């Protein structure tokens, strides 16, 4: 591993962000990354955060047209309420703050506590929960579906709405609509090694893959003998489409988990497009790359979002962040 000691990986990465992105204010001590021009007068602010290890999510999406601030936690551990409250206070222009929260027990509890504390400080907070992973059965017997790739769609599209000057309730409604219109499915070809443990979190022999994984090295629902890119695309895209509301074109995110080369990812993207064509689904926009990752895990995920004209327009709107930038 390219680290000094496990205890400082998050702080070291934040120092690197500070050195590389003068357009961001990076508070290494308190672990808050804020766009330098915040608060932006007249605009709703977006704050997200989560465990580290999913880079560029979330700090890589801070900037005009997307997040106002991000709060990185320890590796695969949600941040603490103090971080979110500090971030919200730093970015609030008086128009209110939207928390974008991935549906994991830790994230939900910490953001909930943060929202209560921020409320006591007089800030207006709305929360949107992202839960797009179809591999988890949403029932009384689980913590509910995980938030994965759709987080990128929510942050980009709601960020664009805020940038246009939409009020807080409208930005929150758009964020929820994006989440409800999105579904994801992920596959691991290798396990993941956290700096703290230094060895693979689960044992996945070469020649096997794990279907329905999350983004924390939690094992999936089913293990099979290795499949081809074509077979994986069939499985993943069909799993997503079977759960996605019908009708209309889609935004497609062909996402790498961190350890799969872009060469393979683009080949997989071709197979994803093939399956969508076969199922009669029109693709409005495609994004290929490592955006919602799981440290060094090899593998991929597919996220589809049913997008009407408004959502496509907001997707195309200018964005200027370390990891996503176009239109400016």
């Amino acid at each position, binding site marked *: 591993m390219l680290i000094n000691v496990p205890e400082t990986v998050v702080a070291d990465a934040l120092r690197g962000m500070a050195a590389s992105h003068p357009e961001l204010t990076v508070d290494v001590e308190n672990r808050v990354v804020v766009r330098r021009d915040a608060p932006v007068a007249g605009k709703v602010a977006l704050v997200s955060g989560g465990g580290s290890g999913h880079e560029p999510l979330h700090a890589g999406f801070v900037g005009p047209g997307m997040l106002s601030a991000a709060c990185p936690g320890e590796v695969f551990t949600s941040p*603490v309420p103090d971080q979110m409250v500090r971030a919200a206070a730093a970015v609030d222009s008086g128009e209110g703050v939207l928390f974008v929260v991935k549906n994991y027990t830790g994230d939900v509890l910490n953001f909930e506590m943060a929202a209560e504390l921020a409320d006591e400080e007089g800030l207006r907070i709305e929360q949107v929960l992202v839960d797009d992973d179809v591999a988890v059965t949403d029932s009384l017997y689980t913590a509910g579906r995980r938030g994965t790739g759709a987080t990128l769609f929510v942050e980009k599209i709601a960020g664009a709405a805020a940038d246009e000057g939409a009020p807080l309730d409208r930005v929150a409604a758009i964020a929820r609509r994006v989440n409800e219109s999105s579904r994801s499915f992920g596959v691991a070809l290798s396990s993941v090694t956290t700096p703290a443990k230094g060895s693979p*979190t*689960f044992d996945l022999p070469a020649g096997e893959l794990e279907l329905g994984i999350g983004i924390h090295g939690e094992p999936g629902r089913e293990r099979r003998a290795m499949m081809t890119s074509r077979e994986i695309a069939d499985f993943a895209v069909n799993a997503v489409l079977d759960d996605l509301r019908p009708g209309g074109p889609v935004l497609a995110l062909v996402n790498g988990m961190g350890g799969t080369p872009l060469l393979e990812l683009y080949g997989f993207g071709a197979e994803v497009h093939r399956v969508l064509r076969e199922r009669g689904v029109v693709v409005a926009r495609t994004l290929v790359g490592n955006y919602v990752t799981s440290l060094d895990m090899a593998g991929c995920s597919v996220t589809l979002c049913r997008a009407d004209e408004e959502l496509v327009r907001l997707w195309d709107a200018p964005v200027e962040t370390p990891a996503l930038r176009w239109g400016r």
Partner: protein
Amino acid sequence: MLDADFFHRWMIAAAGLVDRDAEHLTELDSAIGDADHGSNLRRGFAAVSAALAKEPPQTPGAVLSLAGRQLISTVGGASGPLYGTLLRRTGKALGGAPAVSRADLARALGEGVAAVSQLGGAQAGDKTMLDALLPAVDALGTSFAAGRDAARAGAEATVPLRARKGRASYLGERSVGHQDPGATSAALLIAALADTAETAGGEA
């Protein structure tokens, strides 16, 4: 009676046990979670020790409230809010008394555990920390040692359970056959309590 110093030493003892068993907790967590439970709690209880040393609170309730706040501010994940709430609500239930009995503590801990159940939405048998804490609260009415034994037995009894809450729930049936890391760390907290009572000499 148990005074602020007793509660202070309990927290230090808990920090010691968490530090000693951190790797074991992380190992359990890598089977059905994400391999960080030990390191997260170690960071949290180290912060608790530091905060208590800096400005030792004067009542049992204040010791637990301060410890709970520290955990919420430093642990993250689900463990931070859950353990933080457990200690804060137990501390609040103890009120401002300068010293409390074992029975007082058992009652207050019961309120703390109820708050954890409400916050996390979990019940007995969901394969969570509650499976160690609920039997421990009952047994603490008898003795500290009984509380420790009940917590440990409760943690061990999570092995055949299927997780219904938290990250392990994503595994469904595949969570069966593994001891729950949260129940295991909760048993350490109760073991630290019994250790502290024994070091103090005799039952309170």
